[in-house]
Structures are given as C-alpha cells and as structure tokens.
C-alpha cells in the first residue's frame, strides 16, 4: 500500500498511511456522533444523574452494618442455589452431547441434522438465562424446576457449541484406523472420538458449572428459586442490612465456586 516514490519525495514521518488515517477518522467521527446522539436522545432526567453519587452512598450507608440474623435462611438458600447450578449442569450434559455430535461437521449424519443441531445451539445461546427463567416460571410456576430448566436451556448452547468445536478438531486418523478394523459407527465413536474429546469435555463442564453458580444467584429475581428469592424479598421490604448480608454471602459463594473450579481443573486435567 505504501507508495515508495511518495515516501521518498516527502520524508514526513507518519504513523499511518492516508487511507488508514481516513478510515480511522471516519470511525472516530461515527463513534462520536453515535455517542452524542445517545446522550441527547436517552430518556434520562439529568438532575438525577448529578444526584446519583449521593443516592448510592446513602444506600450504602443504610446497608451498614450487615444484619446476620437471617444467616441460617441465607445459607440454606445458597445451598439451593448450588443445587440448582449443579443439577442443571449435570442434566445438561445428557442433552448437549448428542446435540454437539450432530452439530459437528465431521460427525453429523446428514445436512438436516447439522442444521437442526446448529439451530438448537444458536437459539439456546441467544436467549439469556433469566429470559429462559421468565418463560419457565410462566409455564411451571415459581420454583426450582423453572430455575433448573432455565439454566439447562442456556447451558445446552454453551456446552454443545464448545463440544462441537472439540469434536471438529479431533485427529481423524484413529477414526480411519477404527473404521478399517470393521468397527461399527457406535464403536468408532466410543473408541476413537470419546477419548480424544474427554479433556475438553471436563474443562468445558467445569467452566460452565462456575458460570452457572453465578447465573443461578439471579434466578430468584423472577421467582425461579435460589438466593435471589431472599434478595428480592429483602429489597422489597427495604431490609437493607439483610441485603448486605446476602450480597456478602453471594461473593463468598462465587469465590468458593472459583476455588473449587480451579482445584478440579488441576486435578482432572
């Protein structure tokens, strides 16, 4: 792209050539315009914005000191949260694996299955957990079942997509060797594919479990069980010290989850 004659003609040091600079300015300009539009158009009552720091610090003050009196209820709600995340992750595996099998280019039985698999993965991934929860609460009523289903439906896309990619990356040569021995399709899968994707499988499931712990803390806000139910209740009754305790408990839970995850990762893989 650099015109050598031009460079020699006027030796001015420039970091980018002309076209790149034009693109850069254009991008900058468009960004600026979008931001100005967003600021001017957004439905915000500006005096509130200037008052926000006050409001936030006064809310913080109302939370102090945390009130530990409902710690027992909080602990059992936390356990419920963990159960939702764990059971949902375990159950997801049974659905996500077949889906990833048909959604991987090299193992899918035919084009129709490939597109069906991809459709399942995309629709699962594009809908947020809490929106799935909203739907399942409407169907099955408030409670943990809606929560488990919500987490599952979101995790299928995540685990399925990553497992599908893992399957697409396997070494094809052992598969060929197994076919040459006269093994059936099912035997080729258990013998040549499963061992190759095992490490990826554990890593992905552990990662998703960690994410699911976080996600299941909010399910209760739409009535799908777990610690969120208590949080919503405490906020609705303006019991701010209890809210502070719940928030601390959630941080502790998430940190423990992260510790377990990294321990498992080191042990299993």
């Amino acid at each position, binding site marked *: 792209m650099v015109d050598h004659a031009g460079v020699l003609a006027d030796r001015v040091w420039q970091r980018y050539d002309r076209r790149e600079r034009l693109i850069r300015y254009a991008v900058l300009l468009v960004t600026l315009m979008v931001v100005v539009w967003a600021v001017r158009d957004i439905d915000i009552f500006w005096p509130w914005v200037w008052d926000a720091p006050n409001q936030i610090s006064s809310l913080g003050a109302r939370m102090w000191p945390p009130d530990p009196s409902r710690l027992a209820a909080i602990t059992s709600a936390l356990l419920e949260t963990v159960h939702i995340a764990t059971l949902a992750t375990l159950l997801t595996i049974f659905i996500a694996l077949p889906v990833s099998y048909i959604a991987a280019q090299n193992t899918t039985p035919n084009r129709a299955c490939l597109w069906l698999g991809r459709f399942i993965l995309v629709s699962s991934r594009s809908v947020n957990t809490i929106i799935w929860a909203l739907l399942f609460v409407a169907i099955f009523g408030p409670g943990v079942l809606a929560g488990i289903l919500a987490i599952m439906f979101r995790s299928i896309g995540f685990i399925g997509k990553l497992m599908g990619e893992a399957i697409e990356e396997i070494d094809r040569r052992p598969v060929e060797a*197994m076919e*040459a021995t006269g093994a059936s399709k099912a*035997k080729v899968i258990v013998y040549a594919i499963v061992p190759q994707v095992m490490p990826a499988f554990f890593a992905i499931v552990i990662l998703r479990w960690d994410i699911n712990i976080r996600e299941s803390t909010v399910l209760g806000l739409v009535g799908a069980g777990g610690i969120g139910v208590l949080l919503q209740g405490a906020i609705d009754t303006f019991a701010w010290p209890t809210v502070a305790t719940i928030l601390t408990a959630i941080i502790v839970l998430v940190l423990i989850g992260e510790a377990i995850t990294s321990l498992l990762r080191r042990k299993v893989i």
Partner: protein
Amino acid sequence: MLEISKLVKRYGRDEPVLEELDLVVEGSSVVSIVGASGAGKSTMLRCINRLVEPTSGSIRLNGSELVNLRGRELRRARRKIGMVFQGFNLIDRLTVMENVLAGRLGYVNLFQAITRRYPQSDIERAFHLMERVGIAHYANKRADELSGGERQRVGVVRALMQEPEILLADEPTASLDPRTSEQIMKLLQSLASELSLPVLINIHNVAQAKTYTERIVGLRHGKMIFDGAPADFNKEALDAIYGGIEAPEEELVETPSNSAEAGTRGVTHDQA
C-alpha cells in the same frame, strides 16, 4: 488370494488417480508398491478395504467380491483386512493394550467395547502377539508415551489382532528413522511368513523394497508400469517410475504434473 481387475478411481471430473489397474497377489507373498507421491499407491490400498470408494472395477479377496459391499457386510469384510498406517493412527490417550484390542472391534459387541471386557482368548492373543514384537511390557502404558518404532509395532499388532487374511501397509516406515524402519520392514517380512499372510506394502524407499519384499509393483500416474522380482528392478525401471521426478530416496518435491493428484490424495483422507 487378492485379485484386482480394471480398478478405476477418479475424484470428481479430474484425471483418474487409478486407471484400469490389474493386480493379483497369491499365497503369502510380500509385495511392495513403489511410485512417486501421487502415483495412486495410497488410493489403491484404501480401495481394497474401501476407506476410499472405487469408481469402477473389481476387487476379490479369496473369491468374494468387495466392491459392492454395504453396511454390515462391508464391516465383516474389513475385519479380514488388516491395515498399518504411516502415522500409526493410534488413539494416543488410551493404553497400548486398548489400542491393540481395538483390532477386535469388528468381533466384540458394543457393550464389550465400551467396558473393555474382551474375551479371554482375545487377551491371550494380544499378549502373545505383543510378546512376539517385544512390546508386552508396555501393555498399560499410554500409547503416546512410546517411541515411533514401538508405536508402529502397536499398529502392526492391532492389525494382526483382526486375524486378517491380508495385511495392507501404507508407508509403514515413512515416519520412522532409517534404523527403526529397517526393523519394521524385517518384522513385516517375518510375520508374513510365520502367519502365511500376504502383505502389500506401499513404500518410498526402493532399497528397502528390494531387500525385504519378494515382488515389486511400480505405479506411475495410476498405471502399473513394473511388476517383477526385486532382482529385475533395474535402473530403467527406476527411471520409468520416477523419471522427471526427483530421486526416490530424497524428500519428493511435487512436480507440477503431480501436484493436482497430490491435492486429491489429501482429500482421500478426509473422505475416508
């Protein structure tokens, strides 16, 4: 006895990789197939166990036709054809014993395959063969902990576990150092006579082909242009097979006329 007649393989509308190939292998002879990269050696071997679909022609093993077999019939036929690969094609994360027993996958049922509960006779056969090639003490080692020569021995034993009626070896020594590849060639030669098994070996190394095999078949552009005893394989035959292409002992650089075929050979692996 293996009888190949008028075997044709073409990918799409390209020039055929194999052109009306005829080959008969009788008894327990060791036959080497030499030729430049892209001459169709690998495709021919893979047509025999149908990892590559032949376009037309006939392949008969001990009297039964292989070309139009489907599903279960094909798998039954494949059990009787052992194959050894250039890249060993072992399952790295499994133990040596599991890799060896994989040769029995065509015989055991799915439950036995998953739980690795193979019949006692298979396990004894596995130990026997592993002792024969000197890898029995590695039974519970992971396959990727072995050296190249040892891995190829696992590959050979896996193929023999099938109780094959013929053994195909696709460049079995190309990924090995010279000394180890001599050992593997010697092993294939002696196993062939011990088990009275016909062996077809694709090979780059003409010197090894002359030393360890009883018959040399030369391919060029999918046609057989030499078929005879190692003693008859002279300078002219060598030139006819590799002429215009760099010397066979060197790393072969693709000439333009071969590059198209070499490209399609890459496709074979994906489709198989």
